[in-house]
């Protein structure tokens, strides 16, 4: 049974390489994108933290800034 699945009537090498290449590409793209997103979120949190109280209060008025900060704490 397992041999049949692996060999795929003699086409196993082609079938498994095509599916493996697809899944490896997906994994690489997913993690590359995730790392990039985390990096930008951390950068934002750092910059936000170094703002003066007055500037931070002004920046916090924007919904999007609050959203980014709330997501950053989940990293």
């Amino acid at each position: 049974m397992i041999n049949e699945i692996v060999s795929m009537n003699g086409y196993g090498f082609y079938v498994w390489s095509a599916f493996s290449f697809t899944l490896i590409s997906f994994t690489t793209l997913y993690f590359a994108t995730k790392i990039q997103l985390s990096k930008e979120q951390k950068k934002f949190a750092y910059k936000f933290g170094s703002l003066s109280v007055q500037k931070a209060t002004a920046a916090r008025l924007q919904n999007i800034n609050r959203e980014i900060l709330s997501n950053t704490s989940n990293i």
Partner: protein
Amino acid sequence: MFKSFEPNKIFAITSKAPKYVFSLFIIVLTIGLTEALFLSPEDYKQSDAVRIMYVHVPAAWISLGIFSSLALLSVGSFVFKNKNFALIAKSLAPSGFVFNIIALVTGSIWGKPTWGTWWAWDARITSMLILALFYGMYLLAWRIYENNEQVIKITSLIAILGVVNVPIIKFSVDWWNTLHQPASINILSTNTAIHSSMLIPLSIMTAAFVLFSLLIFLMKYNTELIKVKNKGLDRL
């Protein structure tokens, strides 16, 4: 008209959506892989090599669809002077490029057992390679140019020029004698040359690939919005 699509308003949705899309993607992909690799029948001519179709065809469809969207969004950014269109296009491009590469590589792997060669300078394959070059130029332009106005113009031009290649890819198998088989599925009619036992896994795998491109788009779009906000904090 486009005010409800402003980044500030939609970030709340785009930042929360990826985790749900990811879960759905894993479920659909698991069902799709089970169907494609184990449950679907082998072909009477190609035997089990036909299973490569379940990754090759959806990848090719999505890469063409994404490039067409890039061109539409580029026209939109020119006509409506809305930079958000360019941001959406920029976020779509990486997954489109990866799907294009997957279509080329899996096509090449499928070519060996069916045609006896890994590569042929056939009209369909060559035009897909040209599409990959346009994707490459598009992504490189975003990396090379610093000036925002300039990069939007250049990338829009690349997308609009490159979209000319999309109908060439689609009709290449009808216009020229090629090794590549003609389309088996026509979305504009109910006539398909594929039996439902193969059409169902193909549809499930297509749905999984669409969900994956949506996931990458959302993550990339959020990254781009945060980059914009980072620049905004610098100006404070």
